[in-house]
């Protein structure tokens, strides 16, 4: 019953190492508050070659991204994560992340909005919605693979983005390298990343528009690295599904070609990664009538949702923004009533516009 009870984090602490965080707390209380005393400082040095970069200034964009992804796969931590959008919305969640060999397990307990907790064990994602008594179950594509092998290749990421080491910073009391990932054109956002000095773990991330304005930012407000977490304890919580109804998304794999869709001209840098047919919303009973065609440039993703035009369902043609995520809706005219396109992506609106312009029916 993870989300209903909201178990305290202490339940997850391994009994064998209970005093480390207490020791750190005592040190802090003892007048050393000015020094960055953290649990990981007292932990034995586990310096793998990958964790110790040669010269941060020399790393290329792929070196940085690989380092960040590797850190996410190898570091156990507990923390509070905050996401804020330029419009002023603020969301936060408590995060537990444990690793054991190839197994990664994560718990995200939302602290704002309706109660929900999301568990991820490798590519399996379960979202507990206690108010509805529902668990949403889904498999994420290639969640462990970087770069996404189906999408952009390594070399194309480097051709689309450059990197600049901005200097040093501190997030949640932890020293970080500040790195800016700079897009080479205006079809994608830039990123400013605070990457933990030793492991490379992303502690803070800002998504930047072409003018350098922050569209969205996320950061740990507090985090304990190398937390003594047990994979087993999280796994047990994830398996406590009694009392919930499990809903799986209805989808089947297809290809754009088979569905009769193509791009007249490719949108620079974006390559198709997957195509599904989905059953969605109030029309779910009608079967999988929505085609989802997804593209990636290696960092940003765009999904095109195409369905037969239905005047009852379709809203106005607009562009909407939710943090760094933009959504464009557009009616595609055709003899038989046409189609309704919803393009969604963490990209500037002009990129969605390019997709909408390029999308064409092949039959």
């Amino acid at each position, binding site marked *: 019953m993870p989300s209903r009870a909201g178990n305290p984090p202490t339940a997850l602490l391994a009994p064998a190492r209970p005093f480390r965080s207490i020791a750190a707390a005592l040190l802090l209380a003892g007048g050393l508050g000015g020094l960055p005393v953290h649990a990981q400082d007292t932990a034995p040095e586990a310096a793998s070659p990958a964790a110790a970069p040669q010269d941060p200034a020399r790393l290329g964009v792929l070196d940085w991204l690989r380092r*960040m*992804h590797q850190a*996410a796969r190898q570091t156990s931590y507990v923390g509070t*994560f*905050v*996401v804020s959008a*330029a*419009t*002023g919305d603020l*969301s936060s*969640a408590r995060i537990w992340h444990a690793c054991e060999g190839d197994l990664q397990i*994560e718990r995200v307990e*939302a602290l*704002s*909005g*309706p109660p929900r907790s999301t568990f*991820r064990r490798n590519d399996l994602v379960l*979202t507990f919605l206690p108010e509805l008594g*529902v668990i*949403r179950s*889904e498999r994420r594509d*290639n*969640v*462990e*693979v*970087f*770069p*996404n092998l189906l999408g952009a290749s390594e070399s194309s990421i480097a051709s689309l983005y450059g990197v600049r080491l901005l200097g040093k910073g501190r997030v949640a009391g932890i020293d970080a390298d500040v790195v800016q990932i700079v897009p080479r054109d205006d079809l994608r956002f830039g990123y400013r*990343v605070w990457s933990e000095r030793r492991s490379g*773990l*992303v502690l803070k*991330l800002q998504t930047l528009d072409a*003018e350098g*304005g*922050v569209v969205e930012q*996320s950061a740990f407000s507090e985090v304990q690295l190398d937390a003594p977490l047990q994979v087993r304890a999280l796994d047990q919580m994830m398996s406590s599904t009694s009392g919930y109804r499990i809903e799986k*998304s209805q989808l089947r794999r297809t290809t754009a070609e088979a569905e009769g869709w193509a791009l007249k001209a490719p949108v620079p840098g974006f390559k198709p*990664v*997957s195509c*599904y047919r*989905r059953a969605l*919303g109030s029309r779910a009973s009608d079967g999988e009538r929505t085609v*989802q065609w*997804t593209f*990636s440039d290696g960092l940003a*993703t765009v999904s095109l*949702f195409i369905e037969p035009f239905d005047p009852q369902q379709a*809203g106005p*043609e*607009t*562009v*909407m*923004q*939710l943090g760094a995520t933009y*959504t*464009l809706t557009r009616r595609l005219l055709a003899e038989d009533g046409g189609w309704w396109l919803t393009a*969604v992506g*963490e990209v*500037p*609106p002009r990129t969605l516009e390019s997709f909408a312009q390029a999308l064409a029916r092949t039959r």
Partner: protein
Amino acid sequence: MDEGMKQDLERVSALADGALHGEAFARAVGDLGVREDLRREWQVVHLVGDVLRSGTHAPCSDSAAFLARLRERLAAEVVRPGAAQPAPGAELRMVRAEAANEPVFRWKVAAGVASVAAAAAIGWAWMGQGGTAPAGAQLARSTPQLVVPGAAGQPPVLAAATQGGQPARSRVVIGNGAPQIMLRDPRLDELLQAHQQASGASNMPSGFLRNATFEGPSR
């Protein structure tokens, strides 16, 4: 600064706050009319208020020039005798109170937390300038923000939040617990989820945490 001067300046501040009434009000306005130093203070008080409230001051450069123009226009105004004039009294005062009150309320709030407000203005101001976010964005603080694409090549412009067809309205508690009306479209949320599901690793490494944290109020 002598005590009398200090009191005079405080009275200007109180006048700006709308805290003076009757005799005190009339005297303060009278003094303001004849004393240049008090008019300067009057302007400073408003400038500080503007900055605290909005992070920028109102584009009014010179009140003396404004006054001169106003006098000119008043002189040029044709006075139509017989037009219904409000009795100089009750109604006039009421209008006055209303105009002065609303900003006063905010001013007091801002003054009470002056240092905090100033710090916040510095720390957060740049967030509001977010690139394509149009100037009116702060007025329509609903999420998702509705933006209507302009003509080809034009930056998008903000549309009235009510223009969004028939999105479901739901109350969401954000940040400090202040309830905010947000425009949510359950169908759009569903597409957003499907999009996130397909995103996989083609994301920044913290993308999954972001998606799981920053989710809409509906399912």
